[in-house]
């Protein structure tokens, strides 16, 4: 049983396609895959921007990402005669958040918000801020309309599903009743307030005060007061971006490595996309080991190495046979794992990218990976 092949070039050349989202567990090579796809698409003539989240230093350098200023920069040496061009940027979540605040309030209000301790903690370390801001930035890039293809890397979350869930969770929180109620004592107070919110909430508020200290609640209160004009806006924006991802111009690429955890995570994500009716392009399995001589089994190679070693001499051949046995064992194990995925998801197109000996330092290496993604 083998999965249908994922045709990356057909995907990237489809003029109707405007957004590719690369998602998957941490450590599977999402960022590298996004960058390789972006280079391939630009080389084929498209105007592309790649939004990376937290690229390794040398990968960032290979894209010319030396500044972290939250705006896309042109990557030199891509596109060639095809007319395509590539921009790259690295997400700065705090800055993205600051910009939303600035865009939606008066200068006086926004400076109040930006200096609020609660806002500062929210914008730099809130669980889900990174996902929310990645989603937000994606929306901005799409609205700007300067690119006909946007490729997004996703944050290294605890779960790949966080990319879909965290933004709405956070927007619900920002627009939510609880936050407003917490802020309310500043405005209402007294008996009338208690009547409105009920004793349960008062208990909650009292406990929060006991745990966090009164200052925190004061900060929250001031934050919400200053944010008043933006209420409702957070949820709308998050929902609009979410809806955008469900439209036909988007494709999700799930990235995994041939490891049980990564494939399990990929499986969850594929199921979730199906439930939410989001467009899945396929699965990319990175760092796959292949046997160079599939006809020679690991056991056979090992046995041949043993008998050869016993007879003496032929040291190199013995070593080559043992290396083959190791490689064939690894390849067989990975094949079993990916086949398990195929069994659960027989219709999901798949592409395997072989493991490279070294790391990605430059455009040439990215093109090599892109070539493997596109296949022979």
């Amino acid at each position: 049983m083998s999965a249908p092949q994922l045709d990356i070039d057909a995907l990237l050349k489809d003029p109707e396609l405007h957004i590719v989202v690369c998602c998957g567990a941490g450590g599977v090579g999402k960022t590298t895959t996004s960058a390789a796809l972006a280079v391939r698409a630009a080389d084929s003539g498209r105007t592309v921007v790649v939004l990376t989240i937290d690229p390794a230093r040398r990968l960032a350098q290979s894209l010319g990402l030396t500044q972290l200023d939250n705006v896309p920069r042109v990557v030199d040496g891509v596109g060639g005669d095809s007319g395509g061009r590539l921009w790259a940027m690295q997400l700065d979540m705090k800055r993205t958040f600051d910009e939303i605040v600035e865009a939606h309030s008066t200068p006086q209000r926004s400076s109040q918000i930006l200096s609020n301790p609660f806002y500062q903690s929210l914008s730099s370390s809130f669980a889900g801020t990174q996902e929310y801001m990645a989603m937000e930035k994606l929306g901005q890039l799409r609205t700007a309309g300067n690119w006909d293809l946007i490729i997004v890397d996703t944050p290294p979350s605890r779960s790949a599903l966080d990319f879909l869930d965290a933004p709405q969770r956070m927007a619900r929180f920002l627009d939510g009743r609880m936050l407003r109620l917490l802020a309310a004592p500043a405005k209402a107070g007294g008996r009338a307030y208690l009547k409105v919110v009920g004793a349960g909430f008062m208990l909650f508020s009292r406990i929060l005060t006991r745990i966090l200290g009164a200052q925190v609640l004061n900060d929250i209160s001031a934050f919400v007061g200053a944010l008043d004009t933006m209420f409702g806006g957070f949820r709308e924006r998050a929902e609009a971006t979410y809806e955008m991802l469900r439209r036909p111009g988007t494709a999700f690429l799930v990235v995994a490595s041939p490891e049980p955890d990564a494939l399990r995570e990929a499986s969850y994500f594929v199921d979730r996309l199906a439930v939410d009716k989001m467009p899945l392009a396929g699965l990319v399995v990175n760092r796959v080991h292949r046997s160079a001589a599939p006809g020679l089994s690991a056991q056979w190679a090992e046995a041949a190495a043993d008998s050869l070693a016993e007879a003496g001499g032929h040291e190199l051949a013995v070593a080559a046979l043992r290396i083959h046995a190791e490689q064939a064992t690894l390849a067989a194990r990975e094949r079993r794992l990916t086949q398990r995925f195929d069994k659960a998801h027989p219709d999901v197109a798949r592409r395997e990218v072989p493991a490279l000996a070294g790391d990605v330092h430059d455009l040439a290496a990215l093109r090599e990976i892109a070539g493997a993604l596109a296949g022979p």
Partner: protein
Amino acid sequence: MVTPATQPRPAAETAGESAEFPAARLHVVTGKGGTGKTTVAAALALALATGGRRTLLVEVEGRQGIAQLFDSPPLPYAERRVAIAPGGGEVLALAVDDEAALLDYLEMFYSLRRAGRALRKMGAIDFATAIAPGLRDVLLTGKVKEAATRTEGGRRVYDAVILDAPPTGRITKFLNVTAEVSGLARVGPIKTQSDGVMAVLRSSQTAIHVVTLLEEMPVQETMDAIADLQATNLPVGAVFINAARDSLLPAADQKRALAGRLASTRVAAGLRAAGLDSDNHDGTSLAAALTDQAVAHALRISVEDESRQRLATLGLPTYELPLLPGPIDLGDLLELAGLLRSAGVR
């Protein structure tokens, strides 16, 4: 085990001699995603439990990675035995859940368990941990600290607590709880609590270990994370190299392969002597295919050696664990624990 004699390697067999494994009570295990930190944490818990001791293996990210590794049902928020160590020790495991940790905290410090349940119904617990992410980390590390320092009848309950911690990208922030809540709570009980956690994390009772593979990116992340931890005055313990491979090539052939001078004719002669067909599945010569594989192997080994040398510049105790075919089971964990023991981890 075949080791090229020409290449120095601060491997498991030698690491114990140069530097001692930190005599800590709380072992925090981090690493880049995909490096196998859960596996190493579990092997460490087994190694430290060997010989009649008792250790606790803790996870905090809700992934149930420990249960999967030990092939047990999902862990509840309770300390359960997951394995018996050689020599009669035992390993218990705990999956800390932030909501449950908050309820625990409310009960412990305010006797508020019933109120806590009411709050849970309102969704307020979610809200409280969401409103203050620092709070969440203080609660999680607070629970770990509590287990590490817990006594019963004047004796420590656990000889060691091993935390399967968040990955390198988030570890400093996760452990530096005081800084995280300081912007949030300058005074108050959570501040006091975080100061208490920080005191333990900064002390010699704690050692933070980083798991890496012998590949460029994980090594770079390891070095960056260690620099960050040290800059924050958090006690770095050891480096654990996971899934290391040995060169299977004779030293001279390893050199030839890197120089592009590995002759497939020599492989072909050996294959003939072994009576193997000399054609590959696609009509190319089997000897050529195996030679290419041997060259790729040599390249990988040389990347591994460079990685080892970079890690050696850290001057930290380093332990090396071999690549196992997997999927990792209890037998593999015991094997890894045995290797750690014989390298001086105790």
